[in-house]
C-alpha cells in the first residue's frame, strides 16, 4: 500500500465522502476514509498503486486531483526532510523525464512568479536532469500549500505543505462541470437540474459504460446527459410531452444537447409515459435509476386518470367519426392529481423489482426544514438506504437519497406511506412560505 494525497473541491462538502466511497465501490477499490473531514480539502489515503488512484479520482466531480505523496510537513524545512526520508527511492525513476512543477495554494494569496521560482528552487536536491516542459511534461510535480484566513486575509506562512507526483486530475478539473453548465446548453428549462449535482448524482448511482440508466421524470433530460457523460446508455420518460418534443425540432430539444456533448450514440430514447402505468417490459434490466421526482412547485404532481369519475363515466364509449374517441391520434389523455408520498412508494417498488443486486436508485426529495425528516423517508425491504445527503436552502432543503438493491439475505423494512407518520406536503408548504402555523394534514 502506498500513500496518496487527494485534493478535494470545496464544493458541496457534505457529498464528497459519499462520492469517493461510491467510486471506490464501483472500481472495486478498498478505501479507508477514517481521516476524512468535511472541513479539509486535503485527504491522505492508502491505495495499492497508481492505477487505483487514477480510477478513484479520474471521473470524480468533487475531487480535484490525486498525487503520489512524496512528503509533507508544517513548514518547508520539515517538508524537505520528509521528502528525503520517504521518497528517495523514487527519484531515479524520474531523473531524465521531462517535467513540470505546479503550486496549489488553498486559501493562500497568489504567488508572484519570483516567489514561485524561489519555492521551486528549494527542490533542487531532487537532481532532475530532464527538460522542463510546461505544456506536455511526462511527469508533473505539485506543491500543495494550506493556508487559512486570519484577520481578513490569508496567513503569510502555510499551515501545512504536501509534495507529490500527479497521478491525474478529476473530471471537474478537466472541465466537466463547466462544459455541462446549464447556461451553455442548447436546450434547458425552468426545472432543469444543475450540472454539478447531476454529475455527482450519476457518480453515486454508478452510471458507467455498458450500463443502462433510467430517469422516470426526465423533463429536459439533465440527468440523461450526465449519465451519458459517464458512458451509460440513457432512457427517460415523462408524463409531460412538451419537454420531450422541445422548443423546436432542430436546435432546442433533448437530442440537441447530446449532439453538443458528442454522446448521441448513448442516448436511448425518451417516452411520454405515466410512471405509475409503466410500459417498460418487466424483463428489461435497468442498472441505475437517477431522478428528481416532480414535487410539483410549478405544476401539481399528476398521473393519468380523471378528477371527476362521475363526469367521465361512459366516455370510453364515445365515438368520433366512427372511431372510439380514446383510440384516435388526437385524443388527449386527462390527468388527475397524485400524492408525492405515493409516487415515492411506487418509485421504490419499481427500483426493487428492476435493479440488479448492487444496483442503485438515487433521487432527490425536497422537504421543509422544520419537518421531522426521518418520518418522511420511504423504505423498501429490498433496498438499503446508504446515503441521505442534504443540500440546504433557506427554509427548505432537498436531499439526495441513495438506495442499493440487496440480495435475499438483506432484511430491510418496508415503510410506505401508510407506515410513515409524516406527510410530505412540500408543495403546500412552499406556497405558504413555509409558515410554521400551517397545520399539516394527516
Amino acid at each position, binding site marked *: 500500500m502506498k500513500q496518496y494525497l487527494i485534493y478535494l473541491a470545496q464544493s458541496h462538502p457534505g457529498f464528497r465522502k459519499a462520492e469517493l466511497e461510491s467510486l471506490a465501490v464501483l472500481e472495486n477499490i478498498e478505501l479507508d476514509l477514517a481521516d476524512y473531514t468535511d472541513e479539509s480539502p486535503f485527504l491522505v489515503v492508502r491505495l495499492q498503486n497508481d492505477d487505483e488512484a487514477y480510477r478513484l479520482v479520474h471521473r470524480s466531480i468533487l475531487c480535484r486531483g490525486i498525487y503520489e505523496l512524496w512528503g509533507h510537513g508544517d513548514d518547508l524545512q520539515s517538508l524537505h526532510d520528509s521528502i528525503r526520508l520517504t521518497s528517495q527511492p523514487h527519484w531515479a525513476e524520474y531523473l531524465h523525464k521531462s517535467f513540470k512543477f505546479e503550486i496549489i495554494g488553498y486559501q493562500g494569496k497568489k504567488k508572484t512568479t519570483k516567489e514561485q521560482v524561489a519555492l521551486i528552487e528549494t527542490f533542487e536536491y531532487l537532481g532532475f536532469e530532464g527538460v522542463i516542459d510546461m505544456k506536455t511534461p511526462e511527469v508533473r510535480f505539485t506543491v500543495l500549500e494550506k493556508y487559512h484566513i486570519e484577520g481578513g486575509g490569508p496567513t503569510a506562512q502555510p499551515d501545512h505543505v504536501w509534495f507529490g507526483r500527479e497521478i491525474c486530475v478529476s473530471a471537474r478539473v478537466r472541465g466537466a462541470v463547466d462544459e455541462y453548465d446549464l447556461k451553455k446548453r442548447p436546450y434547458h428549462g425552468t426545472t432543469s437540474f444543475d450540472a454539478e449535482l447531476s454529475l455527482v448524482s450519476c457518480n453515486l448511482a454508478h452510471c458507467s459504460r455498458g450500463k443502462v440508466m433510467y430517469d422516470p421524470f426526465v423533463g429536459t433530460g439533465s440527468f440523461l446527459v450526465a449519465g451519458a457523460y459517464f458512458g451509460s*446508455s440513457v432512457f427517460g420518460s415523462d408524463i409531460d410531452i412538451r419537454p420531450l418534443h422541445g422548443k423546436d425540432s432542430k436546435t432546442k430539444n433533448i437530442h440537441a444537447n447530446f449532439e453538443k456533448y458528442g454522446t448521441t450514440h448513448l442516448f436511448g430514447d425518451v417516452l411520454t409515459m405515466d410512471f405509475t402505468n409503466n410500459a417498460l417490459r418487466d424483463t428489461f434490466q435497468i442498472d441505475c435509476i437517477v431522478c428528481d421526482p416532480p414535487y410539483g412547485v410549478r405544476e401539481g404532481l399528476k398521473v393519468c386518470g380523471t378528477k371527476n369519475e362521475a363526469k367521465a363515466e361512459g366516455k370510453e364509449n364515445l365515438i368520433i367519426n366512427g372511431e372510439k374517441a380514446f383510440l384516435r391520434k388526437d385524443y388527449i389523455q386527462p390527468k388527475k392529481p397524485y400524492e408525492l408520498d405515493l409516487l415515492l412508494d411506487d418509485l421504490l417498488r419499481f427500483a426493487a423489482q428492476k435493479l440488479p443486486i448492487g444496483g442503485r436508485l438515487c433521487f432527490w426529495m425536497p422537504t421543509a426544514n422544520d419537518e421531522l425528516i426521518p418520518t418522511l423517508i420511504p423504505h423498501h425491504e429490498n433496498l438499503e438506504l446508504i446515503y441521505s445527503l442534504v443540500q440546504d436552502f433557506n427554509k427548505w432543503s432537498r436531499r439526495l437519497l441513495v438506495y442499493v438493491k440487496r440480495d435475499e439475505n438483506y432484511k430491510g423494512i418496508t415503510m410506505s406511506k401508510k407506515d410513515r407518520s409524516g406527510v410530505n406536503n412540500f408543495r403546500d408548504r412552499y406556497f405558504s412560505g413555509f409558515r410554521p402555523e400551517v397545520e399539516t394534514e394527516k
Partner: protein
Amino acid sequence: MKFLTTNFVRCAVKSCAASSDSFPLVFSECQLVQQEQDFDAEFLTSMLDRLDWPALIKVAADLGNNSIPQVKPENIDPEDPESERILRDLHSLLLETQITEGKMICNHCQHVYYIKNSVANFLLPPHLAN
C-alpha cells in the same frame, strides 16, 4: 423512437402486464427515417444481452424487414471482422432507424398507442389507467 426501444416496451395497461401478448407491441402504419449515429461496438455488445430476439424479429417484420437472422448472434468479439459486420448491421437497425410516426397496438387488449414527431406516447385514457 428508436427501433431499439421497440424491444423494451409493452402495453402500459396493468392487466396486460402478465400476458405474453402485450409484448412486443404490433407496429403499423409507421414512417421510418435513417439517422446516422457514431458506431460503438462495445455499447452494442452490451445491448445485445438485453434484447429479446424473437420480439426483435417480429417488430422488424412489422416494419417490412424480414432479413433478421433467426437466432441471436453469440460469441461476439468486436475485433473479429465477421462479428463487426453483424454489429454494424445491428447498429443500423437498432440505433439509426427512427420511427417518426406510427401506431403500436397491444395484441392482448387491442389498445392503440401513437408515435408522433418521433416520440412514443404511452399515456392511458382514464378507464385503462389506475
